[in-house]
């Protein structure tokens, strides 16, 4: 076998072992997180025994683990996976390392929906007003993306600019509404915008988990196309057999859906979608066949870590994960950036 081929195969092997290690670490941390909280710190082994049904938990233990912590931990994993994958997909297909799932305006749409529900008491499905509104309003943004994608000469920059425009418009409408809002409404909206994992119930998080799990393989199908688009722009993609216009539109619809499914339930969580893909590039390189799985795992780990710290640091006060992510993830991200000067292409 050719020597260069051999070292490439060895390198791929190392990367896959690294990915497996990261996955194991995430699962381990998830178990740890289930046993940790403001009350009833169980320790790793007892938690594992309860999770795997080896010990019969007391009623209180069962409630805390299955009804409080499990949905939260599951939501952290699923949310991290979805947002980080969406970020990696979007950065690649727009050829821009500054892009995050919030860039397209999906989150602003969701925030607008939430504001309609909270302040104007306007909603399509009153029982789950905020979630339903946030999701449906973010679908409007997905609709704009589809409409934009059907235009002939739409470039990567067009999507980013339109996303920024949507953010401004939605922001202005939300501001206008908050101007007339009561204090209670304001506080509710502010809490929504923090981004928290405490809202989804067990059923919610399992359903979201299935949705995200069914969308993820589609991201992997685009891996080669993303490699071509991330490397050399549209002309290069075409000569490699990728139609950049259609591929970009499809990838953006997929990312927007992933983002809106999560954000409707959790509120604004942005940072993980920017940082996890870049951290993964440092670990595993830019081949999207490996980068997508790695970003997904890194996103889950980052969210779990941020949330676990957030609910133990000032226990019994729980700091929302959206805040903790930026507080913890921000400095880590900056440290990595500076250590690899320009290493993430930023």
């Amino acid at each position, binding site marked *: 076998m050719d020597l260069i081929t051999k070292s490439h195969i060895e*390198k791929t092997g190392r990367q896959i072992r690294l990915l497996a290690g990261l996955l194991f670490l995430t699962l381990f941390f998830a178990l740890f997180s289930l046993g940790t909280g403001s009350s009833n710190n169980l320790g790793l082994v007892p938690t594992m025994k309860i999770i795997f049904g080896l010990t019969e938990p007391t009623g209180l233990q069962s409630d805390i683990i299955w009804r409080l912590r499990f949905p939260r931990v599951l939501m952290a994993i699923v949310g991290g996976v979805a947002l980080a994958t969406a970020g990696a997909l979007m950065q*690649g297909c727009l050829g821009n390392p500054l892009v995050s799932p919030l860039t397209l305006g999906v989150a602003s749409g969701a925030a607008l929906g939430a504001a309609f529900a909270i302040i104007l008491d306007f909603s399509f499905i009153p029982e789950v007003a905020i979630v339903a509104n946030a999701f449906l309003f973010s679908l409007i943004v997905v609709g704009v993306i589809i409409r934009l994608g059907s235009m002939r000469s739409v470039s990567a920059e067009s999507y980013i600019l339109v996303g920024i425009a949507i953010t401004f418009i939605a922001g202005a409408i939300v501001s206008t509404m908050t101007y007339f809002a009561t204090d209670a409404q304001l506080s509710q909206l502010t809490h929504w915008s923090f981004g928290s994992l405490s809202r989804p119930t067990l059923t919610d998080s399992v359903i979201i988990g299935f949705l995200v799990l069914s969308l993820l393989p589609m991201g992997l199908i685009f891996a080669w196309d993303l490699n071509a688009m991330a*490397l050399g722009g549209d002309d290069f993609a075409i000569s490699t057999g990728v139609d950049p216009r259609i591929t970009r539109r499809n990838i953006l619809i997929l990312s927007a859906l992933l983002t809106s499914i999560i954000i409707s339930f959790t509120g604004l969580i942005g940072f993980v979608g920017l940082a996890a893909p870049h951290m993964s590039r440092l670990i595993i390189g830019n081949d999207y066949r490996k980068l997508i799985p790695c970003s997904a795992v890194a996103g889950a780990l980052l969210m779990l870590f941020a949330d676990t710290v957030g609910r133990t640091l000032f226990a019994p006060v729980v700091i929302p994960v959206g805040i903790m992510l930026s507080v913890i993830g921000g400095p880590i991200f900056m440290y990595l950036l500076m250590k690899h000067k320009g290493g993430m292409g930023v």
Partner: protein
Amino acid sequence: MMETPGELIRGGDSSVILKVENLHFRWGANEVLKNINFDVSGNEMVAILGKNGAGKTTLIKCLNRINQVNEGKVTIASKDVSKMPLLDLSKSISYVPQTVRTSFPMEVFDVLMLGRRPHVSWRTSPLDKDLVSQTLRQFGLEELAFRRFDRLSGGERQRVVIAKAVVQDPSIYLLDEPTSDLDLWTQLLTMETIRDIINDSGSGKSAIFAIHDINIAARYSDRVMLLHEGEILADGPPEDVITRSNIAKVFGVECDITQATNDHSMNVVIGKPITKRM
């Protein structure tokens, strides 16, 4: 490693691979290409010469559908390019842009592997990897195999992108100024390598390259197309097209042309600009 450049075998196969008929291309009201007609046969290297803005890059991009032509037809092996699935098209034609820049840390090996993209579904086989490794050697890039593409010099990047096109194994190479960032030795080596690849294919491959260096064009092409204001001014063997009067007309530059007696090679000695402004 390097034979004396210039001793080359001129291809003479008549099987037409690429055919361009009545091609017109407009940017808005501006007609960039007017009524372009030509054929390219297997084992042929065609140089496109012309000054800045003559339409060289636009023409090359019309051939592989990066630019959608307004009128006329491009066919590859009798198939209409505008109706071919893009993935099939990229198996027959590969394009090397003037420059490729990226913001992402991709390794040179993976860049070349993109050339296999039209041929593989998702997984790459050891054969694909071996082809990448061999091509890296062919272009003297083995030292760079695991370096980051975004950190290479302009010349290194250019060679990597040419090597990626070779890994794609098409029948037609479209090269937009493939030597613009290369030093003299690497220019010749790269053109020799392309010439070898075309020759080794029997009559299955050909190359079309836009270029500013008239001597490179003369030395490595079987045919020169002189593009002037969106039209083909002359099309034929280098010795017929690269003449004092044509160079003066298109580039506004004086020159002397010397013909070597032992082989077909010719040398263009560039003189002064005829007018200060064109």
